[in-house]
């Protein structure tokens, strides 16, 4: 079995598991949670105490960190929920290809070419304009549960 692990490839650096369990009652606003298999940022939590409806429950409203969609879930507060490992890594922007992919410089000096341009209009414009204008750009890439997306942009060029 251990031989097979050597061949195991994972995109994320944070070990083999993409989520970890956490008791629903301990998840707070601005934390992360998995709803319907999507990694979400928690924007609202409310708890209803044990009563006619049964065990105490937590009502979560989350925003999918990649698509921006609002998702809801209700979980008994003593149950475990999945919390995604969310990582942010910065890369320098080297190039934008015609078919919408970006070329990024990693810490180790390799290029990372498998990432698409973000879908958010604002961010997309900023990247395209900044790159066309010859600026030195660093992009922040958020990764969770096997998905990655550019979520922010910094201009590190000379003033």
């Amino acid at each position, binding site marked *: 079995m251990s031989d097979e692990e050597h061949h195991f490839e994972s995109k994320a650096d944070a070990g083999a598991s993409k989520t970890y369990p956490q008791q629903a009652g301990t998840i707070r606003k601005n934390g992360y949670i998995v709803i319907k298999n999507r990694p979400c940022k928690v924007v609202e939590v409310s708890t209803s105490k*044990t009563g006619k409806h049964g065990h105490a429950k937590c009502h979560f409203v989350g925003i999918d960190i990649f698509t921006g969609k609002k998702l809801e879930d209700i979980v008994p507060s003593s149950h475990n929920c999945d919390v995604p490992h969310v990582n942010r890594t910065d890369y320098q922007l080297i190039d934008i290809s015609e078919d919408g992919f970006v070329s990024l410089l990693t810490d180790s000096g390799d290029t990372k070419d498998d990432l698409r341009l973000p879908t958010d209009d604002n961010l997309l414009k900023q990247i395209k304009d900044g790159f066309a204008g010859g600026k030195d750009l660093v992009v922040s890439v958020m990764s969770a549960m096997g998905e990655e997306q550019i979520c922010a942009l910094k201009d590190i060029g000379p003033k």
Partner: protein
Amino acid sequence: MDDKLVNSVRSTVFKDSDSLEGTCTRIEGYDFNQGVNYSRLLKSMLSTGFQASNFGEAVEIVNEMLDWRLSDEPIAEDSSEEEKDPTYRESVRSKVFLGFTSNLISSGVRDTGRYLTEHHMVDVIVTTTGGIEEDLIKCLAPTYKGDFSLPGAQLRSRGLNRIGNLLVPNDNYCKFEDWIIPIFDQMLKEQHEENVLWTPSKLIARLGREINNGNSYLYWAYKNNIPVFCPGLTDGSLGDMLYFHSFRNPGLIIDVVQDIRAMNGEAVHASPRKTGMIILGGGLPKHHICNANMMRNGADYAVYINTAQEYDGSDSGARPDEAVSWGKIRGSAKTVKVHCDATIAFPLLVAETFASRSKNFVA
């Protein structure tokens, strides 16, 4: 004094009265010198007056309803060959609709109801959501006697829910949740895989099957194929469970349209049977049963037992005569409203009617 004046005054004050002897019952209460004979005590209510007399009339009406056979009626001209057969006519009895509110199932009246469904003494049941769940929950954990005056905030902090002078611990509802959610999961599976379209009455029958406990009236209703209608299924703990289940495992569909077809069908297709309604409490069960009977131009027997008043125009408080104006009860029907809490009146009514005729209900 003037003689003429005296005679005139005398004829005014001492107006001859109609004689009631022979036409009206004499008022006479029970004589305890006979000893404590409960059966005679209950029978004496008819002549005791006020609501005791109404209770006595209710007993008479229910017994008339239970004793009626099609063979009591003249053969109708448009009868089919089967309907003309005397043996068949002897076997055709009234169709009994029983309705009650949830609080009565929280109370000990649930056990009276269980007796009726156990021996197939009623044909159709209509209730509100609590009338379903409280019966099931009692099989998982008991309800306790408390007091009307227990302070709400204290009870909340102790995890106790008050229903009148009864107490239901939160824990009971947790047990209910743990019991029912896997059943919903299974039902959803059947919906997808076997194309089952669930309705409130089908769901209730399934729960009666799953609880598998002889103390539950729903268990016996399932065994004896007595449909239990609950169009307001979402308004109770059961509804809460459906709500939560829709997050964890979405997609369960419950169709009320099929059930209104079935409920009204029970009334419409009852003929040549007569129909009777025994309704405990007001609200949805009362109206739903009356409305279904409207579809067959009115029920033949109606007994209401409730404490509601008509002065606010509510349907709950409406007397049977109001239902006659809608065609929900026939003008020729035998009706009575007993103004009494059903926890007192109903077990006593069953004692004098269904339970006294238990031999008639052997399957």
